Every structure is written in C-alpha cells, then in structure tokens.
C-alpha cells in the first residue's frame, strides 16, 4: 500500500462523492508542487465551459497583476481545475487562486498547513494529511485551536449544507492528535509580551519613568501574571490559617529559635561532621556542570567533558577541556562562573569522554566564543548552611532547654517550619509575579543607558531620540551600525543587501548569486558587531548568500524578475518576501531623514529601485 493516497485518485474520489471544492492541506510546498505535477498527463479534462470560466477569471486577475500571465501552473489549472497555493508563490498568484475559489471555478487547491491562517477562502471539504507542523525548525503537534482553524475552512455558509473535514494518513500522522483537535475545546491563549528596546524608548519618550510600572500593569501579560498570583494568594491564605495554632509562644519567633537551637544541638553532638560538607554554591552549581557546559575559571574558560564524584571523599569533580587542548581533572569548586552556553558535545564512555570529532569542534567553538557571555543565575538553597561557630559557642544562651513551651515546640517544629517554608515560597513567588515585567523593563533601560540611548535618569539622549524610530527586529544592531558609521559611503545596493541579511530569518539552503567583495567585507563588520551585542540582542542569521540576491536586484536596475529568479534556487514567493521585508527595513531608515539625511537618502534611492516589476504590483 502506498504511504499516502495519490493526488489524482484523491481528487477523483472527492469528485465522485460530490465533496468538491476541497482544500488539500499538505505537509510541504514540495508536496503541493508534486501534487500538481501528478496532473500533467491526466486526461480527466474539465468541460470546455468550465475551462472558459477559469480563463475569464484569470484574465481579470492578470489585467491587474501582469506578473502571473506566464505562470507555469496556468495550463494545469485551466485543464483540470486544481491549483496550488503556498508561500513559495507570489502574492498575486495566491490572489488569483483565491479569486478562482471564490468564483467556484476550482475543484481543489493544494496548500500548506503553515499558512492555514493565510488561506482566506473556504471550501466544501478540507483534507488533512498531517498532525504536526514545523515551527521554528521543530515539528510540533497541532493544537486544538489549529486543528479547528484548519477544519473550519470546510463548509461555506450559503453554499454548503454541510462541510467535511477528511483525514487521509501520511507517514508520521498521529490520528489521536486530530481526533482530540476535532472534539476538544480550544486552548486558552497566553500573552507573549516581551519588552523590546524600541518599546522602552518610545514609552520613555512619551511618559515619565515613574509611570512605566502602571503602563506595564496594563498588559495582558501582567493580567495573566496577576491571575496566577491570585491563585497563590489564596493558597497563602490557606497556609496562614493552618499556621494559626503555631502563633507566638514564649518567644515571638519560636520557629527560628527552635531551628537554631536544634541545629546547634546536633552540630555539637557530632564533633566533626560525618559527611564532607560541600559549600552550597558548589552543590547548586554542580548539577549544571554537564558535558558541553562552558564555565569560567579564575583565568580562562573551560568546557565540561564529564562530571563525577571522587572515589574516597565523594567530592564533586569535573573533567575540563581548556583552550589549547589541555584536559584536566579538577574539583568542581574551581569553577568560578557557569555560563548560559552549552556546546555540542558527543559523550563517550572513556577518556577524553567525548568523540574525537567532538573534541575538535569543542576546541574550535571554545576559541570562537564571544568575549562576553551571560552567566547562569543559580539559586543556592540556604537550608543546610552550617551554623557559624560563634553561634555554636553560645549554646548556653538558648533558653529552650528550660522553657515551659519546650515540649510543644519540639512537637510542632516540623509541621510549623514546613508551613513557614511554604508561606515564604508563596510570598516570594507572588512578589516575583508582580514585579517580573518591571525587572525586565529595568534591564532594558540599563542596556540602553550603557549604549548611550538613555541618560542616567532615563531620558532619551540625542541618539535615543532618533533610535526610537527604528521599530523592527534587531533594532539595537541597526542603530549601533548607524552610529558606528558602517553605512557611510555605502551605495544603495550595499545598504539594501545588509538590511535584507538582517531581516531574513529563514535558514533554508539553496543556490545564490556571488556577493561582491564590498558586500562581503561590510557583512563581516556587521557580523562582528552583532556578536558583540549578543548578550543584549539575539544576533540575526546574517546570510551573505541571501544578501547577494538583494544586491543584484538593486545594483542592476535592468535585471528582470525572471532574470533574478534564475540566479537562485529560492522560490519566487520567498524572493518577494525577502525584498518586501527589505523595503520595510529601508523605510525605517528613511524616517531618519532629519538626523541622518545621507543615510535616509540612500535608503530612499534603494527603495525606488527595489520597487519595480512584481514589487510594484501590490500596495
């Protein structure tokens, strides 16, 4: 049996059962294109009247968007009445397909699920072939909301009495995910609020610093954090109630008093602690020292190859790889910093505890690390901190042994201290929930102060005044590039090319035109700056190959769209999106015309050249 139904059979099955028009959601663009090719030699032609209807609709669309006049799919669409619609196509082609569907001209459209939200047309039937979807390079199960969004395209109001969502399996499908999606209640949606540099600058431009907390409090993020805090507050009330019997006794804070007394008593009884006491920081850190972890030592850095406990003392040990290739066994205590960075490390069961290739790449990676790395905040549990000797000396000062509540304290201590810990934990959590947004906002302020966009009193500096107009991703990199004069003297094609390498966030490989030497060296400079900013802003992919596409388009105004498409394996729709995003980024540079007239002018020249052919068709 084939792993999935053949597209031609699928369409004829649907036609036969009167289940057309249908939208067939496939896993990839490639699958959509192959489905279309499957009809190349198909003889099930549409009756002439329907073919003419399709031609008429297409003519109308072509009149508006000439770029699709020669579209290679047109013959199949017209003969068979099926079409493909995905992100690799030009927007104008997608409009044509949507228009055909709206007129009821097509029997089926092959589309990708990635764009379910962008498929703005309904059908009688929706065919589903997958239960997961690629998100950020990973396959994730469809959520209930997504399944319903997809299935919801079935059944056109006013045109259908019923709609059909039909699953047809392909490898890796999990039918349970889909049945759950059909029958379930959509998930709650959650805030994805993040604090961006432009947000901070624009807020501080408009409002004094002391109003920021109340503005942040208006976010849905804070609303949801408050909801969680309220749950904890209710729990806290409950703990308070349970603690009532453990109120003040002879001493007000008898729990701490007893705790101290008890500890001291124990410590006294074992003269020397039986267990080798490792400091709590070391204990807390130790579990993060797993293979691949980058650590800071007093003078250099090292990558952990393995962790273990020494034979006799059972003290925490690590094997470290140091720059230059030395492999050393050291007590975990010599690690001074645990960085928030893991390197790819293929473990091996014996010395040097990783594969030889891994060792090599680790060494390389270690050399290539940026000079600044964020450290990992590690919480140290304070519970078993040893009591200072001074206190031990003063056991005589405790009145517990003779106190009238001694037996009550002894009996209640465990319960009471557990409740109190719980109480403190809830209070800490509530505090964190109430203030975390503000803390993140303050971190952003500090970074902006460090770079000179804000004054010490959080007023916009001269640089801050113009930097707030750059409101796109990677704004810090862009404004820092401008300040470092990276673009001074660059011509429009270089500027546009750099902008597109910053804007483009797709890592799909392909073939691209060669880049000019000038662009190569400028991108090197951009990459260096981006890496140095890494602790403050995630660096963009900065693909040089992609930048070359834009460079060609701007540098040679005679180049036609077809000519450009031939220079790369990138899909038409992707080139379009790349250039459209570049246009957006350039138009942000253009807003700096008062402070950076030369740059703005260069951006506007680039935009004028960029906006030709296909790019001119749509607003």
């Amino acid at each position, binding site marked *: 049996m084939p792993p999935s139904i053949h597209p031609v059979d699928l369409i004829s099955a649907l036609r036969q059962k009167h289940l057309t028009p249908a939208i067939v959601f496939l896993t990839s663009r490639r699958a959509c294109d192959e489905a279309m090719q499957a009809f190349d030699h198909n003889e099930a032609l549409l009756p002439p009247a329907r073919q003419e209807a399709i031609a008429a609709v297409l003519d109308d669309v072509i009149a508006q968007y000439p770029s699709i006049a020669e579209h290679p799919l047109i013959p199949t669409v017209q003969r068979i009445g099926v079409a493909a619609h995905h992100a690799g196509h030009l927007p104008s082609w997608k409009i044509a397909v949507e228009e055909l569907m709206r007129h009821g001209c097509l029997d089926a459209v092959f589309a990708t699920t990635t764009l379910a939200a*962008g498929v703005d047309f309904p059908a009688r039937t929706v065919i589903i072939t997958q239960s997961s979807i690629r998100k950020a390079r990973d396959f994730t199960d469809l959520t209930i909301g997504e399944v319903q969004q997809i299935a919801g395209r079935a059944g056109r109001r006013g045109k259908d009495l019923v709609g059909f969502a039909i699953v047809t399996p392909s490898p890796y499908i999990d039918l349970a995910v889909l049945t759950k999606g059909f029958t379930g*209640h959509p998930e709650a*949606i959650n805030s994805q609020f993040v604090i961006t540099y432009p947000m901070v600058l624009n807020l501080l431009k408009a409002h004094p610093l002391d109003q920021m907390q109340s503005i942040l409090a208006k976010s849905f993020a804070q609303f949801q954090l408050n909801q969680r805090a309220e749950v904890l507050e209710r729990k806290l009330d409950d703990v308070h109630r349970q603690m009532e019997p453990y109120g003040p006794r002879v001493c007000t804070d008898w729990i701490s008093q007893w705790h101290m007394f008890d500890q001291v008593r124990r410590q006294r009884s074992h003269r020397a602690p039986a267990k080798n006491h490792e400091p709590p920081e070391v204990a807390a850190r130790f579990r993060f020292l797993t293979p691949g972890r980058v650590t800071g030592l007093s003078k250099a850095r090292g990558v952990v190859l393995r962790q273990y406990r020494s034979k006799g003392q059972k003290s925490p040990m690590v094997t470290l790889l140091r720059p230059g290739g030395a492999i050393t066994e050291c007590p975990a205590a010599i690690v001074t910093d645990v960085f928030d960075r893991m390197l790819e490390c293929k473990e091996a069961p014996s010395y040097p505890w990783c594969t030889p290739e891994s060792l090599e790449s680790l060494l390389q990676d270690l050399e290539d690390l940026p000079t600044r790395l964020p450290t990992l905040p590690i919480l140290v549990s304070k519970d078993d901190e040893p009591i200072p000797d001074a206190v031990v000396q003063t056991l005589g000062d405790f009145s517990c042994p003779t106190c009238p509540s001694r037996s009550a304290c002894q009996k209640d201590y465990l319960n009471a201290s557990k409740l109190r810990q719980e109480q403190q934990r809830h209070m800490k959590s*509530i505090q964190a929930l109430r203030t975390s947004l503000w803390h993140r906002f303050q971190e952003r302020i500090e970074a902006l102060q460090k770079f000179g966009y804000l004054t010490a009193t959080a007023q916009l500096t001269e640089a801050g005044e113009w930097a707030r107009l750059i409101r796109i991703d990677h704004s810090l990199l862009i404004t820092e590039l401008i300040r470092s004069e990276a673009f001074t003297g660059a011509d429009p094609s270089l500027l546009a090319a750099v902008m597109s390498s910053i804007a483009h966030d797709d890592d799909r490989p392909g073939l691209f035109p060669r880049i000019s030497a000038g662009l190569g060296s400028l991108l090197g400079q951009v990459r260096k700056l981006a890496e140095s900013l890494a602790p403050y802003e995630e660096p963009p992919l900065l693909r040089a190959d992609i930048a070359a596409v834009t460079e060609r388009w701007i540098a040679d105004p005679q180049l036609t769209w077809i000519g450009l498409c031939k220079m790369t394996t990138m899909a038409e729709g992707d080139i379009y999106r790349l250039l459209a995003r570049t246009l957006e980024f350039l138009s942000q540079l253009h807003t700096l015309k008062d402070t950076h007239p030369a740059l703005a002018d260069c951006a506007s020249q680039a935009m004028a050249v960029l906006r030709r052919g296909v790019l001119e068709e749509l607003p």
Partner: protein
Amino acid sequence: MTTDELEKLLAQQPIALLHRLARGRVHRHFRAGKRRLIELLLRHSAENRAGFESDLQALIGERKSQRPEPPQLRHQAPLSPRTDHQSRRPHPHHEPDSHEPSVSLAEWLAGIGVPTPQPFVPDPWQDDALDKLETGDVIVSVPTGSGKTYVAVEAARRAMEDNRTVIYTSPLKALSNTKYTEFSRIFGADLVGILTGDRRDNGQAPLLIMTTEILRNLLYDAAGGEIDLRLDTLGLVIMDESQYLADPERGVVWEETIIFCPSQARLLLLSASIGNPHDIADWLTSIRPVPCHLIKHSKRTVPLRAGYLHPDGKLTPLFRTIGIPHGHPGHWHPEAKRLFARYEDETMPSGRRR
C-alpha cells in the same frame, strides 16, 4: 521550592509532562532526553521561577484530574463544557467501545448540497455584537466561517456615519490587501485607504486598513507628540484575527496596540474560537474606560462532519456519530479504527508506536 526540590519534582514527572512544560520555553526540546530536558528546564526556570513553578503545578494538577474516569461515568448525559475541558486528553486506544450503532457511510454523506438562497438576515449574535458596541468594546470569539466580516463592515459603516475614522488591522499584508479590495467594493474606493510600511494609498480616507504593526507605530508617534488627525477623530479600531495576541513573535504588538489605543475609540476584536475569551474581555474591561462585552459561541453555522480516507481510496466516517462528538475523542468509527490500525502496521517500522 529550592532548586533541589524543583529538580526532584521534575524528575518524578513523566517525560510527556516535561515536554509540555518545555513548550515555548526550550528550543528543540523534543530532541532532549529526560536528564537533559530537566537540566534545560532548570536553566530556563531561572528566568521566571515563579511562573515556571506555577505552570508545573498546574500541569501536575491537570494530570491528576485526568486519570481515566471510572467506567460508570461514561454513559452520562452530554458532558458540560467544564468536564469536557478536563477530559480533553484522548485515550483512543483505551476508551471502551460504546454499544450505540455507528453511522453508515451513506448516512454520513447524506445531505450534501447547496442551500436554497435566503434573504440576508443577521444572526442574533451579529446584532448583539453591534448593539454592545454602542456601550463598550466588544470581543467576538466564534468559529471560522461564522460571519465576523459582517460585524466589521456594519460597525465600520455606523462609525463612519458618525464622522469617525475607522482603522481595521489584520495580521498579514496579504489579508490587508484582500480586505482593501473587499471594503473598496462595499464602501466605494474613495472611502477606503491602505497603509503599509513604505506606502500609503488614500491615507486620509475614513476607513483605513493596515497591519497591526503599522497601527502600533502610529500610536507610538502620537504618544511621542506627533499630531495625527486620524487618531483624533478615531472612533473605532477593528482588530481581525485577534488570536494573534498569542503569536510568539508578534503577539506583543497586539498587546501594545490595545494598551495604547486612544480611549475615545471603541475596540472591536474579532477572533477565531479560543479557550479563554472571557480573560481577554476581563483584561480589556480592567484597562479601558468602557466595559468590554464578550460575544461568543462555539456552534458552527454549517455543520461539520469528519471522515477518514484510506490511501486505497476507501472513505469512512471518522467517528461513530454523524456529527463531531464533542468531548469524546475516542468515539472512533470501527471501520476508521480498523483501517488506520492497518495503516500504522504497514507503514511504521515496528516498535515506533506505543
């Protein structure tokens, strides 16, 4: 909870729960084994420890309440939405078969066709949404294909009759273009404009279409002191596809737009069905000068049926019932179950599946 305790608690959880916890927190978490996943989660937890712990507790709680129900509960009347919510996780392979007869293919296919044309009469929920907009903001959460556009169009018409500017936002430039064409057809090209990052067509028209990012930028500029007449006379902001609020990359822009939306303008949020529309309504009510009304329903206007098509071309209903058995993910049609089991046997390398 100390880090130690947290680690222990994590270690006690099944890996599936850890993966759910890792969603949206840990990049590529599906590749990690349990030990590594715990480490990654611990590392992440430092960012927002409290939120992390409370999510963990919620997942553990959810798991407890989802232990398979005792069998005698099964034949009770349709589940209320609440219990429906709790029994969301499917147990397709464990749920015992019910003894009701299953629908036949012919019954399932019956009734395909085109309805006789009816004069347009707004649905009660559509009228309700428009009425409520007189006294406050409105969020509409209804299934796809219900008719949200009608609400948008009528609301825009009313605001324009009042000499107010209307801004309509959509998440994608492509959708903006479609709406631009559609609205120009309805209202006439003079009255409709479109703003994109680098271009404006008829930018002073009373009905302006733009992406949410563009509106957010206009609001930044206005707050920064730039005078914008359009915002002064702004009477209504319509945000289509408001469920984008939860988009990991762009959701923040929706929040900003709502927070900074001028107080004299009404907000109309249009959304596909989401799980917690009342939260959004409560949130808006708490930050806006007028209350936010929630219009929601989950019944589809055109009934939906689910089917299973085997690669050999054999079609069968997916569920035992003709419609979708809400709350009963395990009510598979025996034929679909049989065919799919065969499919799995033939295509999956042995041992890959449970």
